[in-house]
């Protein structure tokens, strides 16, 4: 029999991405209800995704934005 924590680790991504079947989801949730080890790692994954997204975003330089607007004016209507 597969260790329930190993099974839970295996379905972490499809669970968070809502790709599991109803039965698989319930199976994962009933394990998460009783297992703080897995619960911590699931919460961490959610936080990690949010954190990665937040720190890798770099604002567009203002000069580039102005340049793109110039390009719109410079490109003929029918090319």
């Amino acid at each position: 029999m597969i260790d329930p924590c190993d099974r839970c680790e295996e379905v972490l991504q499809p669970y968070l991405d809502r790709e599991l079947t109803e039965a698989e989801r319930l199976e994962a949730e009933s394990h998460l209800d009783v297992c703080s080890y897995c619960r911590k790692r699931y919460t961490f994954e959610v936080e990690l995704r949010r954190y990665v997204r937040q720190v890798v975003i770099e604002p567009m330089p203002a000069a580039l934005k102005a340049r793109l607007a110039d390009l719109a004016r410079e490109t003929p209507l029918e090319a």
Partner: protein
Amino acid sequence: MSEVDPETDAVKVASGARDRVHFEEEALELADQVYRVARRLVSSREEAEDLMQETYIRAFRSWRSYTPGTNLRAWLLRILTNLNIDRGRKVQRTPDVQPLEEGDYFLYNKLEQSTGEANLDEERVLERLSQDDVVDALAAVPHNFRDVIVLVDIGDFSYQDAAQILDIPIGTVMSRLHRGRRILKGELANVATEDS
């Protein structure tokens, strides 16, 4: 009647110009979001800026091929990823050495281990990753996997949109995303535990 009606022509030109201005406004409004993705598809800011300019030039030239009402952001990203491949990043063969792929708990376990304390809060574990760690780790993920992570997790594109942008089947998007995130976490474990 074979004579061209100058008034009708003028009306056509005016309405074409109006549509084009509308297109430009919409495309420029999306530039921040397109840049966010572009910046992480390539390794330097300069490359990202060049790619943005080339993309917008092409978009303004071929604006008539965009169908109004469809996803303009995906349309722009499709141009951008194609240009990126043309720029020398040829479609990659599967790399000979596959990156090491650990399980989904690997990073957490590794970080918890490196603190020497068990049962830490998730937030405390996360604090061990600096912004540079994340940026470096993402850059270290092979292109095929990184493109999908950037489009879905940073650009908020659906699997369907990502599949169309990259011209790959949706199943491939999903498997690359799952594997790519594991590779990213493996890279994060490397960079974060090197610092300490």
